[in-house]
């Protein structure tokens, strides 16, 4: 058969070759190699983009955009869709001019060019980064009817660079040093304090993301990756590391990124991303198409190491079944889980609950509120419940 799905080419094949099997693109020649020396997605995928909530922030330069988790698969976030969080917009840095200074309580302060940094022993790791405000809009009540906008401030990539501990060995840490101040070259000169122990444990100073150079939005040419800790400390456009004996209490760790409790006290230095999971199918953007057999799909992550188990409930938490974890299950990386589900067409409340390798169990929003009220903005790692209606539509809800 050689008739086209669409328009019939002038030289179409014999009429008897029915029904049509060839589409127009099968009966013509396409663009050659290097038509796009650097590729891009199909035009028909134009809806799969980072999106923002325009009413949320005063300006796009101090704002956030969300990854379209509803259209992603696997554990790698492609660089074009990695969520963004800027405090003074995206600087477009000339890597030939960019330098990293390491100083303070060190033996041998250094000024490193990108060329210098590329020579140090390399390390490659797959890690998620999550903004601790991910899901923040749902602290008070279910607000965003969308997976992208309720959970899209988490992404995961393969990072390559040098261990921060290697750089710190090279400068020589003085024994009074207990903290590091890390600072970006953006207009915000974004800076945070980190305990030296974490710096020496698993922090990475990276220049590559999923194989290629970091994207400008992700800190090109250099960023810090602090595995498992809140996004804000993963300083982008990294230009300076200073060792000291005490924390700095910068604006980003006092006015912001502190968690206000119902009694009026606030928690500071809450860096850890606690275990969290979410069902990515079904979700508000991806409803069900009539009763039948489906595969529940989701992602789990924890700043404490590896995922041990994920359970899924279809009845709002009355009963749970353990889902299948997909390999590779990597430390401080997104982990994929699935569970088959034969949907009978009746209303359902689907939710997932992760347990990480420390035994920590993802809490309900009610449990979290009992401890923290609903004004702490950050670190909402509660179980996400999706309401499935009998027409297959899906809504973001919370349970009493």
């Amino acid at each position: 058969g050689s008739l086209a799905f669409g328009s019939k080419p002038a030289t179409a094949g014999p009429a008897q070759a029915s029904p049509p099997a060839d589409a127009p693109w099968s009966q013509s020649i396409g663009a050659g190699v290097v038509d796009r020396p650097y590729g891009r997605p199909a035009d028909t995928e134009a809806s799969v983009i980072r999106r923002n909530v325009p009413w949320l922030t005063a300006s796009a330069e101090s704002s956030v955009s969300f990854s379209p988790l509803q259209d992603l698969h696997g554990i790698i976030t492609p660089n074009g869709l990695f969520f963004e969080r800027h405090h003074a917009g995206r600087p477009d840095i000339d890597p030939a001019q960019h330098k990293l200074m390491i100083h303070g309580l060190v033996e041998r302060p250094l000024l490193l060019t990108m060329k210098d940094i590329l020579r140090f022993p390399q390390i490659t790791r797959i890690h998620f980064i999550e903004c601790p405000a991910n899901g923040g809009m749902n602290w008070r009540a279910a607000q965003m009817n969308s997976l992208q906008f309720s959970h899209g401030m988490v992404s995961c990539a393969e990072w390559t660079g040098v261990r921060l501990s290697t750089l710190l060995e090279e400068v020589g840490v003085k024994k009074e040093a207990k903290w590091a101040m890390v600072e970006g070259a953006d207009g915000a000169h974004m800076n945070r304090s980190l305990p030296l122990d974490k710096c020496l444990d698993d922090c990475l100073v990276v220049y590559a993301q999923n194989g290629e150079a970091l994207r400008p939005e992700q800190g090109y040419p250099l960023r810090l990756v602090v595995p498992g800790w809140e996004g804000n400390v993963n300083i982008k456009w990294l230009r300076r590391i200073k060792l000291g004996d005490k924390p700095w209490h910068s604006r980003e760790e006092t006015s912001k990124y502190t968690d206000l409790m119902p009694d009026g006290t606030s928690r500071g230095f809450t860096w850890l991303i606690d275990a969290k999971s979410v069902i990515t199918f079904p979700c508000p953007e991806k409803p069900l198409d009539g009763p039948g057999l489906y595969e529940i799909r989701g992602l789990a992550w924890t700043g404490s190491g590896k995922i041990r188990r994920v359970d899924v409930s279809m009845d709002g938490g009355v009963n749970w079944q353990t889902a299948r974890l997909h390999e590779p299950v990597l430390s401080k990386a997104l982990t994929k889980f699935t569970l088959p589900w034969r949907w009978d067409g009746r209303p359902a409340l689907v939710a997932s609950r992760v347990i990480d390798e420390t035994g920590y169990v993802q809490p309900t929003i009610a449990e979290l509120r009992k401890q923290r009220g609903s004004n702490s903005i950050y670190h909402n790692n509660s179980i996400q419940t999706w309401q499935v209606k009998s027409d297959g539509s899906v809504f973001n809800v919370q349970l009493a």
Partner: protein
Amino acid sequence: AEPGSFGYGRVASPAQIAGWDIDVRGEDGAGLPPGKGTVDRGADVYAEQCAACHGTFGEGEGRFPKLVGGVGSLRDERPEPTVGSYWPFAPTLWDYINRAMPMSAPHTLSADDVYALTAYILSLNDLVPNEFVADRNSLPKVKMRNRDNFIWTDPRPDTMAKPCMNNCVNAADVRLSSTAEGRDLTPRTTGPLDTMQSK
């Protein structure tokens, strides 16, 4: 290994370090440079460089942050954390203005102007008198209202859920406490970027 084993890059000179070393510590003001500024001078610079976004008296324009107010609100249903109500350390204000403001030309103010702006914003919040002169000695001594209400060690895990598998709650008790349905807060997730502004 010994420091300098790789030998890459150049040792940073004291002059280079002085040029880069902009950070100021909140608690003790370590890193504050020489210089000073009055509330009055702050008011002038503020009117010129800051008021458009933060409001003439720090009340905020549009969705730009308020720099005053909210005192006593931290236990309210809608708390208002500001410099006056929330910030624990005054030197942090100097540091942040110096590194990040004004938003469209960050880190272009002189040390004196940053001192003056700091003095002005503190005075707007009734944290210092009108005669206050901000400098490296005076700033660390300013007593901030919320100074003692931060816990700097993370008490998590603060939930102890047990991973129950069956009949974990009474099915009849399962009910919605809220739904995002019909709230009209969510931008579209197909087609071009949404520009929705209001709720």
